């Protein structure tokens, strides 16, 4: 399923090895094989700096020690702009949703999630990003 997804180039920003490989595995099940990994926000920013028009989507964990996902997102949005951004979060409260929205998140997914949920979220944020592009 999903020619739309299979060609995607995705950057994963996540500090935990297990979580990175889990995501890589799930994305692989969705036919997404062009995956890049960054261990923290700084590395993610450096990567995006050199490849911002190359990456189709960023999937980033909220909770990282050196730079939080929201901080990474803020800096990314100042530097480049519109790459679709999926925030992975263990939080459930409205405040953090509002915070992520104000930083310019395209969508977020709550841990734990199945690969079906992940696929739905990927489609949602791609459609959102396409809508925004069409409207701008």
């Amino acid at each position, binding site marked *: 399923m999903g020619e739309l997804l299979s060609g995607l180039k995705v950057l994963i920003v996540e500090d935990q090895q297990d979580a990175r490989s889990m995501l890589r595995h799930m994305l692989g099940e969705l036919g997404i094989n062009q995956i890049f990994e960054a261990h923290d926000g700084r590395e993610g920013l450096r990567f995006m700096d050199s490849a911002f028009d190359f990456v189709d989507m960023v999937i980033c964990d909220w909770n990282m020690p050196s730079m939080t996902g929201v901080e990474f997102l803020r800096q990314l949005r100042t530097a480049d702009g519109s790459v679709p951004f999926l925030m992975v979060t263990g939080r459930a409260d409205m405040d953090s949703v509002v915070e992520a929205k104000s930083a310019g998140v395209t969508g977020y997914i709550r841990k734990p999630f199945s690969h079906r*949920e992940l696929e739905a979220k990927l489609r949602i944020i791609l*459609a959102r990003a396409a809508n925004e592009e069409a409207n701008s």
Partner: protein
Amino acid sequence: MAVLLTQIIILILIGGLAACAAMIWRQKQALASMVTYNYLEDAIESTPMGFLYFDSRDQLRKTNAMARQMLPCLKDGDCPLKTVDAFLDFVFANRYSKRFGNELQSSSYQEHVFTHDFMEAMAYEERIYLMQASHSQGAALVVFLTDVTDIRMRELRFQQTQKLEALGRLAGGVAHDFNNLISIVDGYSRMIDKCAHEDPEKVVEYSQRIRKAAERGAGLTKQMLLFGQHKMVEPKPIDLAEVLSQLGDLLEPILDKSTILSLDFERGVRVNCSHDAMTQILMNLVINARDALPEGGRIKVTTQTVNQKSLPSHFIGTNKGRNYVCISVSDNGTGISGQVKPRMFEPFFTTKSQGQGAGLGLSMIYGLVKEMSGFIDVETEEGQGTTMRLYLPVCVDKRKNDVTADLDGNETYRFEGYTVMLAEDEPDLRALMKEALVDMGFEVLLAENGNQALVQQDDFQDDIAFLITDVVMPELNGIQLADLFSAIRPDTRIIFLSAFPANGSLSKLEVPEGANLLPKPVDVKRLGQLMHDLLNDNGEVVNTNCGDDESWANSYQG
């Protein structure tokens, strides 16, 4: 003559004496005021508060040692703080000086207390006295500065300690709940080991139960994240029967064989809670009952709706005119002793041995029940057993689905308070269907393809009762959409519409077996009936397989 002279001399002497006395008195006065002045001067200089005095012309007249220590620039000749405005600007960064000026004119004396972080690590509490001097037109300003850095640090440390303590308590409670879940996972995984070779079906069943426990764990962490706010996660009307029907499976591995759990509950009773919280409440009550039955015994869980009048007498008077459901969990175990009973709802109070419980179960239940505007009643006798009764207000369900028959016997279906998502790429058909659904009373969300339907549901906060989707759609087809939709919204019932026979030769797409499929053109009445049946949760699949009727397939293309 001599007498006169003597009198004059005496008078002069008296006058001189008087003059002397007056002079001495005046000098004494001056001396006394000097002494007072010195005394005040000393007191002000040595007072442990910073002191500044501005005169009626707004000039800084007086500072003391502490003030000069706190604001070292006061020692300089060209200190910028030597006027009232400059000082207030410095202290309040321009924000208050105007206000101060106004207040100064309207009142003769005012006291303001501000805590202000002057420099990075230092916090001063400024106690500022404004005084209208009686002898002059302007106002004098007296400022006292107090150093509260130490107090602040102590407060901070105290808060930190309290936070750590709360964290410790939370960890204890969470460990307790997680241990229950872990024992479920552990129990079923052992059972899988045993039956792995003989009974693959059982393996699937047990692994599903393990997954359920993992889901509940996820729900628990969600709850925990909102713990600080003492709020329930997304309370909404839930069917008690739904929670209770899963309780048996959930508890099976943690109950002894000698303990018999019986469940007797009414269907269709709804309370405002979250599924996870209700499961937690019931699990905790049953586990408490289990612990009261060291030798095994009987645990009975029942529900019964009661009206206001049948509430225990001490609850009557509150929440008039409401109906309640009484959830009762009873055991024939050891009972609760008179000493324990008054303390049983206290947080961290436990009779269990260390590691067995954090003493949070009942206090959590108490909190949740109170949040639902309910009551708890305890009936217990030592050696006889305990019955815990929770009285929770019943939710009046605003949602309705009715069938009415007109004079000709035609049935019409009416739905209220439900939302439908309709995904259909053909614009005319979409408009037509929308009209029919609105006529039935639904709120309708429209999407012209699968991706749009996903985005729409993501923006929509409430429940979506139905997804009605065309099977053949560009980009994401109906079957793929249904698959993803049910991953994010497992409670939404899905109905497929197709112009092709289900899985016949004309169809490239295969609707999953057992799905609800209606042929196009859509028979509205049939759709209404299907929705009515699905809502009443008969669980019967109305698969209108149209494989044997291909004639319509040519005229309508989905």
